[in-house]
C-alpha cells in the first residue's frame, strides 16, 4: 500500500519545524517520490562547459534516475537531451564523456542525430513515407531538456517544464560559484581531472546535511585529522615548514568556538554555506606569484576581496556542494534509498600557478576519496545512521540546535556557525519541491 504517493500532506508532515521523520532517509517510496518530484522540480548540476571544449564533445549524467547527456554543437552552443534514442529507447551515449564527431548514431538501428539533437537520418527512410512519422515526437530527434542555464560555465538543468526560474531558484547563492571562478586570474575554470568516485551505502541527504554540520569534525575526525596533527607534532623535528598535507588536515580539529564564530549563511530554496567570517581554508600558505597575478588581473582591492572570501562548504540544494577556496564540487548522486554515488570534481584555475591545482587535487584525495581516512570517518557515521534509523525507539531526527521557536522560511540570514538551521532550511526546501507539483496534479484530476 502506498503511504505517500501523491499525498502532499503526508509528505509535508515528515518535516516539522526542527525535526524530520526517519522515513525521509529510509523509506523506499519516499526515495521514488524524490526521483519523480524533487529532482525534476529542482535545478540540477549536469557538468562543466570545459568538458565540452570542442564541437561533438559530450558528457553523460543523471538527473534523479533519468539519463541525460550534454553536447557541444558545431555552432558552439551547448544542448542537453534525454539520453535515449527516439526509436526504441536505446541509450545513445554510454561513456561518461567523449567526442561523437559530427553526429550521434544510435548503435541499434543507426538512426543519427545532429549534435543539437535534431534528427539527421534514418536508414531506409522511405519505409516511413506515408506512415505519419512526420507528426511523431520521434521525428523531432533526441528529446531536449528545455530548461537549461549555463552559469559561468556551470551547466544546470531543470526537467520539469514549469517551475521556479534559475534566477529565483539560486539567487544570491551563486556568489560562491562567482568567487570560485574569480579565483582564476583569467576568470575561467577547467575540468582536467577525472572525478574521484566513492560509493556510500546511505541516503544521499545524509551527505548533504553533513556539509554544514560543524559539530562533527572535532569528534568524528579525531581519528584522522587529530592523528595527523599528533603525528606531525611528534615527527616534525627541527622542520619549520608545515607540509601542505598538515595544513589541509589540521583545521578539521578546530574547536567549537572556531566554527561558532565562522558562521553560516542561509539562502532561500535550501541553499547555504558554512565559513562566513573565516573557515578551515583561511590559513593556507600563500602560493608564490599567485597574489601578483590576481592583483594584475583584478586590481589590488578586488584581488584581496576575492581571496578574502574563504567559504567552507556551500550547499546548492538539493545535491551538490561547492568548495570555492579549493576548487572542488561534490555531486551526491542518488542511486537508491540507501545508496549514493559521490563524484568529487576538481577545477583548475586557468592561468594560476600549478601549486594551487596540486593543492586542490591533494585536498580531494585526502578528504573525498574511498582511500581517504577522513572519508572513512564520515561514511562510518552515515552507515551507522542508516542502520540506527531502523530503530522504532524514536522515529524523529532532531535538528533543534540553536532553534529559537519560530523561523522565517526562504530568507537570507547569517547565523551562529554551529546552528542546525541550514539543515532545517534544506528540509523546508525538500518539502516544498517534493510537493509543489502534486497539488496541480490533484487539481487536474478533479
Amino acid at each position, binding site marked *: 500500500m502506498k503511504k505517500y504517493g501523491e499525498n502532499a500532506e503526508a509528505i509535508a508532515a515528515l518535516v516539522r519545524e526542527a525535526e524530520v521523520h526517519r522515513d525521509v532517509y529510509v523509506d523506499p517510496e519516499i526515495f521514488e517520490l524524490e526521483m519523480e518530484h524533487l529532482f525534476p522540480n529542482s535545478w540540477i548540476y549536469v557538468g562543466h562547459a570545459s568538458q565540452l571544449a570542442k564541437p561533438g564533445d559530450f558528457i553523460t549524467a543523471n538527473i534523479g534516475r533519468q539519463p541525460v547527456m550534454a553536447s557541444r554543437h558545431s555552432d558552439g552552443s551547448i544542448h542537453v537531451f534525454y539520453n535515449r534514442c527516439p526509436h526504441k529507447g536505446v541509450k545513445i551515449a554510454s561513456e561518461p564523456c567523449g567526442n561523437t564527431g559530427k553526429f550521434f548514431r544510435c548503435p541499434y538501428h543507426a538512426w543519427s542525430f545532429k549534435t543539437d539533437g535534431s534528427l539527421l537520418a534514418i536508414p531506409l527512410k522511405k519505409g516511413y513515407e506515408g506512415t505519419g512519422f512526420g507528426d511523431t515526437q520521434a521525428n523531432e530527434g533526441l528529446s531536449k531538456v528545455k530548461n537549461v542555464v549555463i552559469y559561468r560555465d556551470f551547466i544546470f538543468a531543470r526537467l520539469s517544464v514549469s517551475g521556479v526560474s534559475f534566477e529565483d531558484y539560486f539567487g544570491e547563492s551563486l556568489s560562491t560559484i562567482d568567487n570560485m571562478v574569480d579565483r582564476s586570474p583569467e576568470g575561467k575554470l577547467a575540468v582536467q*581531472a*577525472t*572525478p*574521484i*568516485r*566513492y*560509493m*556510500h*551505502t546511505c541516503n544521499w541527504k545524509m551527505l548533504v546535511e553533513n556539509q554544514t554540520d560543524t559539530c562533527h569534525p572535532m569528534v*568524528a575526525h*579525531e*581519528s*584522522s585529522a*587529530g*592523528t*595527523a596533527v*599528533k*603525528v*606531525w607534532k611528534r*615527527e616534525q623535528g627541527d622542520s619549520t615548514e608545515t*607540509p601542505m*598535507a598538515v595544513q589541509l588536515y589540521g583545521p578539521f580539529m578546530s574547536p567549537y568556538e572556531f566554527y561558532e564564530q565562522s558562521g553560516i549563511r542561509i539562502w532561500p530554496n535550501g541553499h547555504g554555506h558554512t565559513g562566513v567570517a573565516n573557515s578551515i581554508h583561511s590559513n593556507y600558505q600563500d602560493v608564490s606569484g599567485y597574489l601578483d597575478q590576481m592583483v594584475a588581473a583584478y586590481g589590488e582591492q578586488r584581488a584581496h576581496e576575492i581571496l578574502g572570501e574563504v567559504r567552507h562548504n556551500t550547499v546548492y540544494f538539493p545535491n551538490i556542494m561547492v568548495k570555492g577556496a579549493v576548487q572542488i564540487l561534490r555531486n551526491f548522486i542518488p542511486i537508491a534509498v540507501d545508496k549514493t*554515488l*559521490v*563524484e568529487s570534481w*576538481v577545477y583548475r584555475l586557468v592561468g594560476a600557478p*600549478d601549486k594551487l*591545482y*596540486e593543492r586542490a*587535487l*591533494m585536498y*580531494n*584525495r585526502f578528504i573525498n*576519496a*574511498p*582511500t581517504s*581516512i577522513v*572519508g*572513512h*570517518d564520515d*561514511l*562510518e*557515521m552515515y552507515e*551507522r545512521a542508516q542502520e540506527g534509523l531502523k530503530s522504532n525507539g524514536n522515529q524523529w531526527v532532531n535538528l533543534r540546535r540553536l532553534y529559537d521557536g519560530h523561523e522565517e522560511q526562504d530568507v537570507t540570514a547569517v547565523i551562529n556557525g554551529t546552528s542546525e538551521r541550514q539543515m532545517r532550511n534544506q528540509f523546508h526546501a525538500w518539502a516544498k519541491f517534493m510537493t509543489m507539483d502534486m497539488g496541480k496534479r490533484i487539481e487536474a484530476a478533479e
Partner: protein
Amino acid sequence: MIDEKDIAEFIYREAELLDTMQWQAWLDLFHPEGRYWMPLEWQQQDPVLQPSLMYEDLLLLKVRVERLAGERTFSQKPKSRCHHLLQSPRIVACVPEAGVFKARTSYIYTETRGDMLERYSGWASHDLVQVGDALKIRLKRVDLVNFDAPFGNIQLFM
C-alpha cells in the same frame, strides 16, 4: 649481492606483513623518501598534477597506521583484515651496480570488515633501493584494473 630472488622474497614478505597486520614492520620497509601511490588514471604518469586515489609519504603512512589502532577510530570497530594473493613478481630490472631494482606483480587483494568482503585486482610496481644490506621501498605503485570504479571504504593497504 642482491639478486632477482631477493626482490621476489622482499615482495612476498611485504604482503605477509600487511596480511598479518605488522604495520610497524611494514613501515620499516620504506625508504625515508618512499612513496605509496594509487593512480586514478590509465597509465598515469604524474602523481602530483593528475588525480590519484593515494599518493603518500612516510609521514602520512604513519598517520594511517597510527589511526588504525586509535581509540576513536570508529571505522575500525570492528577491525578490517586483508589478504594478498600474488602472482610471481616479474623482475623488470635488477642492476645492483646501478642500485636499480624494479618488479611488477599481479595480484588479487581482499579486504574484509564485519560481514563485508571486497575484492580488488591489480598490479603492484615496486621501485626498490639498497640501503646497507637491505632493500627499501622507494615507490610502491598500485594500479587497480578498475581504478575508475566507485569504491566503498578501502581502509588498509594493497
